């Protein structure tokens, strides 16, 4: 006899889950794999060691890492402000966090470029102190910060909401410094959520196309071509190169997967330590 589940409808919901996953994720991903295997080993290596391909991987991953770290710092502060303080316009601000999700990325990219180019409103100010933003790697990082910030804030917010201020008060009463309270009381609680947010922001940044493409300038010389741009180059140019595009996409996928996997391991170890 099969044990009856308390919640009925397993068959149907599982059916929908499997169908959805296959149609939307598994089958398309499998086709990426299939296409990239049409390249021979030698061709694959040749493609992956081309200077522009290597450089694009360095740019994409480096910029996405930088953006994710910055997002973590400011994401915590933002989430903290939104959870712990009351001020007029708080709800509006809370809603604004999600704008980068809703705004078409190309619109975001064009707007950021206009703002941060040396004729733009913000770019002019930065140019005076000698910092060029649009058409440099800084520009790429800014675009990635823009699209990644909601992931971090939305991951941390619920945890902070559940965290009762009474622990902090108790610690302060017992003579802990503010820094100690943050590191010993608050940080361990939000760390898993922060890691999740970091991972999501990173993954999003590595694969980002729309918002980055306008602000980066796509110059091979300045090292501002991102991986997704190289993939589009393969698909847009006179001779459509599906295999090459799929192979680069596959490597990108594997790298993203490994990074997310690593984050999960860190999270696992960390949670074991806190629970021990």
């Amino acid at each position: 006899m099969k044990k009856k589940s308390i919640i009925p409808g397993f068959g149907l919901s599982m059916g929908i889950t499997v169908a959805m996953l296959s149609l939307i994720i598994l089958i398309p991903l499998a086709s990426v794999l299939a296409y990239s295997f049409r390249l021979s080993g030698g061709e694959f290596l040749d493609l992956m060691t081309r200077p522009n391909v290597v450089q694009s991987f360095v740019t994409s991953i480096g910029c996405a890492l930088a953006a994710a770290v910055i997002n973590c710092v400011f994401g915590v502060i933002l989430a903290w402000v939104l959870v712990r303080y009351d001020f007029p316009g708080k709800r509006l601000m809370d809603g604004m966090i999600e704008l980068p999700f809703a705004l078409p990325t190309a619109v975001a990219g064009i707007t950021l470029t206009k703002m941060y180019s040396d004729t733009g409103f913000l770019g002019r100010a930065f140019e005076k102190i000698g910092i060029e933003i649009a058409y440099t790697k800084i520009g790429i990082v800014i675009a990635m910060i823009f699209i990644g910030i909601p992931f971090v804030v939305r991951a941390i917010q619920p945890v902070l909401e559940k965290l009762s201020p009474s622990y902090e008060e108790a610690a302060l009463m017992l003579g802990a410094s503010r820094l100690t309270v943050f590191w010993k009381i608050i940080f361990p609680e939000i760390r898993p959520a922060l890691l999740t947010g970091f991972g999501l922001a990173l993954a999003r940044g590595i694969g980002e196309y729309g918002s980055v493409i306008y602000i980066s300038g796509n110059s091979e010389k300045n090292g501002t071509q991102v991986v997704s741009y190289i993939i589009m180059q393969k698909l847009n140019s006179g001779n459509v190169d599906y295999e090459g595009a799929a192979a680069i996409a596959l490597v990108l996928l594997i790298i993203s997967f490994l990074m997310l996997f690593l984050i999960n391991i860190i999270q696992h170890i960390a949670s074991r330590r806190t629970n021990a």
Partner: protein
Amino acid sequence: MKKKNFIRKTISFTLAAACMVFTFTGCGDKKEDGTLTFTNVSYDPTREFYAAYNELFAEHYKEETGKEIELVQSHGGSGSQARSVIEGNDADVVTLALAHDITAIEEAGLIEEGWIDEFDKNSSPYTSTIVFLVHSGNEKGINDWDDLTKEGVEIITPDPKSSGGACWNFLAAWQYAKEKFGGDETQMKDFVAQIYDNVLVMDSGARGATTTFVENGQGDVLIAWENEALLTLEEYPGEYELVTPSISILAEPSVAIVDENADKNGTQEIAKDYLEYLYTEDAQRLAGENFYRPSDETILNEFADTFDLSVNLCTIDDFGGWDQAYQDFFADDAIFDEIYSK
């Protein structure tokens, strides 16, 4: 018991899958009142022209047959539009920037061989060329390709490795260098390399480059399609000037019937009519008004005020056709990589 469970699972799985299939289907070609839908897949800058042309053609079609026709236009980068047709976009005709993109559809088996001779003038009812757009007053004194190699001149042009239009820009510069240095390849490469050294921003497409130059105010000169440049002059009167170089390239955007789709949709006749009508006087004049050079010489001369007709134009045949040009210049490790990656 187990078997029943299995059957139940199978049923729910099938149901789930069926639900999804129904969600994604349900579009047809013919409307209930018999109005035919006809799709023209084109590239970015022809948007305004085909919007006007479709009105003209719908009128003509109604006069001929007494029936209404609904004309659908689709625009995007020429290469990706071709790809969408190959991947199943149900286009009846394609009107793309390069013959090469149509050849790609032909190679996928959707267009019959010999399409380029199906209509007049290499199936190019209108043409364009590559010109320079500079800021009003032309302070940097940009009059020809030589001036683009000067130090301190900032150029905006899209990436030839991702944009079909950008290939024309490169080839026009190359042709100039060829005439100037009498075919000495080392000097020609140096000359073109100097131009590309001055490129400030390399956008992924022609529209993006126009945005960078016009909206974001980057650079001193935009290497652009003549039709895009003239459109910009019209939209921003007094802010820009158009400079036609002494040598440029004749860009022949081509048109073709997507035979496989047209046969399936029963639109072969209309498709032929649609593309042939592009060569009539009215349509040619409309092309001229939308800043494309009409292929009809008489009508082209009517627009002598708009277009600089004295420019010396080479064609893609001077480079041995598109496939050859692509292999020679833009494939991995070809001439563009060689001069730009240094």
